[in-house]
């Protein structure tokens, strides 16, 4: 029995900002410009849990998800999968057990393939026969609530948004993975269809004993699906802990601001944070949230706060 599905220590991903041409990069002595998408993050994902990664666009949450799905290689820091350190040569092995569902099903599915071709594609390297392929296709489709016979030969254009996302989920579960990274799987859908897909994802998680990383900018969605929440801001995790506790008693000013920005049917008032997500090229000094923070102190402008544990919740803020 393994202790963690994924464990990250100081995990970092920088992208080079490609504002200069190739020749320039050989000749120029100016230092390279880096976009700090994910900056020294520590976290663990336990078997069977749903970890929600919450934050605004540009906070690095998608990059982190792609790193776990081995679609990006880290710049610095260590990543452990099933307690074993991940290096480039393990990617093929890990990809058998890790799957990803993307935000917009219309873009992430080949429009020219049949639904059956799309869903059974992950099986092409394993030596399963046609008969067993058919059987696995039928099982995967019934798990996502679609009828295998009706849909096998259809194309994506024949399906509605919710059905497309179901097909994407079927493709992710057919190879029997242990872990799925879901990147905003419901944000392109109507509110009523979003509820269907969330119910479905929660049911599949239970039935197949999966582990999820659920990436979303909507903290109400995170509340429904997750056991633990990690809030990201400008490449850093600023708060993480059990979902109920983080939502009932948010500690970091950014988490509080996020919660007050989510529209609900209980209040007419929204209290959004001022300003926008900082550019990841020229980050503010000290705490990255300080230009938008209502409780900003002098120390926030100078030094970056470290992760501190209070009870079950970890928070990176000078207030604590």
């Amino acid at each position: 029995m393994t202790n963690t599905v994924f464990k990250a220590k100081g995990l970092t991903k920088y992208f080079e900002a490609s504002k200069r041409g190739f020749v320039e990069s050989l000749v120029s002595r100016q230092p390279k410009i880096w976009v700090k998408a994910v900056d020294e993050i520590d976290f663990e994902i336990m078997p069977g849990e749903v970890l929600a990664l919450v934050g605004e666009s540009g906070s690095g949450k998608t990059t982190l998800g792609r790193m776990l799905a081995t679609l990006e290689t880290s710049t610095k820091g260590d990543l452990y999968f099933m307690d074993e350190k991940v290096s480039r040569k393990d990617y093929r092995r890990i990809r058998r057990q890790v799957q990803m569902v993307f935000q917009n099903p219309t873009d992430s599915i080949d429009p020219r393939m049949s639904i059956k071709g799309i869903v059974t594609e992950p099986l092409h390297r394993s030596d399963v026969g046609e008969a067993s392929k058919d059987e696995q296709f039928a099982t995967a489709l019934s798990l996502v609530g679609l009828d295998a016979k009706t849909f096998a030969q259809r194309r994506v254009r024949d399906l509605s948004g919710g059905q497309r996302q179901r097909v994407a989920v079927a493709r992710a579960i057919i190879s029997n993975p242990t872990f799925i990274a879901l990147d905003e799987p419901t944000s392109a859908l109507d509110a009523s269809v979003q509820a269907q897909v969330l119910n479905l994802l929660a049911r599949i998680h239970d039935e197949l004993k999966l582990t999820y990383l659920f990436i979303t900018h909507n903290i109400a969605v995170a509340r429904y699906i997750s056991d633990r929440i990690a809030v990201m801001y400008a490449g850093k995790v600023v708060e993480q802990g059990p979902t109920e506790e983080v939502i009932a008693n948010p500690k970091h000013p950014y988490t509080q601001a996020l919660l007050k920005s989510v529209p609900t049917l209980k209040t007419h008032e929204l209290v959004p944070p001022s300003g926008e997500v900082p550019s990841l090229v020229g980050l503010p000094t000290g705490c990255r949230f300080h230009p938008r923070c209502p409780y900003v102190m002098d120390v926030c402008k100078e030094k970056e706060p470290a992760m501190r544990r209070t009870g079950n919740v970890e928070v990176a803020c000078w207030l604590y």
Partner: protein
Amino acid sequence: MLLDVKGLRVNYRTVYGNLEAIRSLDFSVEKGESVAIVGESGCGKSSLGHAIVRLLPPNASYEGSVTVDGKDVFTLKGRELRAYRGSEAFMIFQDPLNSLNPVKRVDRQMLEAIRTQRLMRGESYDEEEATRVVIDGLKGVRMPDPEIILRRYPHELSGGQIQRVVIAMALVMKPKILIADEPTSALDVTIQAQVMKLIKELKAEYGMSVLFITHDMAVAYTVADRFLVMYAGELSELGPVDRVVTDPLHPYTVALVNSIPHKSKKEGDLVSIPGSPPNMLSPPGGCRFHPRCPKVMDVCKAENPAIKQAEDRLLRCHLYD
């Protein structure tokens, strides 16, 4: 009564046949009031917005009447129509990146709007004075450094900034009614909250009427006075927001309210609406919601219910006959 829609029908001619986007819609918006049109994709809510500003594509035909401040919109032609668009009814579109011209700087586009409005009214136009108006408009939408923003191209701005530029444009044009078609669905929750707060403040400050079109009741709840729930081109329920949310009567409204994530999965499944919205080329007979309705009765399959007044709202459902 500022906006009055009577017997509105919108049809699209398509290669597959006639598509009935809106089938007979009646409602009105008072001065300074905001009404939210809520429904799923394909229920006709965007067609309604486009019909009011007369921006429907050439294959669309419409019947009925739309009156804005006593002016019959469907009879406007040429110059009158240009004078009406923007200055009387202003529309904010869903995708901020498509709503500005990508090869023109922000100041050119905002000044162009003012110049057109002044010329249409036969007033004089002074560029310096207009620039001051534009800067005031940007300040009005709480935009920091308006002078810098004005010299930028749209691709240099974020989605939230562009949406604020468009709202600032609405502010300088001072329309009588603002039609916002999913203005925040491409934005993050925090930026969405900023934009919603702004629309609400503008409505309070300038007494602008707002027609807010969205699929998300929770977003609409922050700004609307009344909800108009639409399904398959028809009105399902119309009533004051707080009453509709606490005591929804139409089964479709009930499902919409309950499908908003508001709890943890440990407390049970979210209520979702089975199936998907009907194909409008061949909508179901009887009540259009009956194939998806949990309370369907025999009469629902045979007969489309008429609109009835029930206490404080209008309803289209056989349950309340």
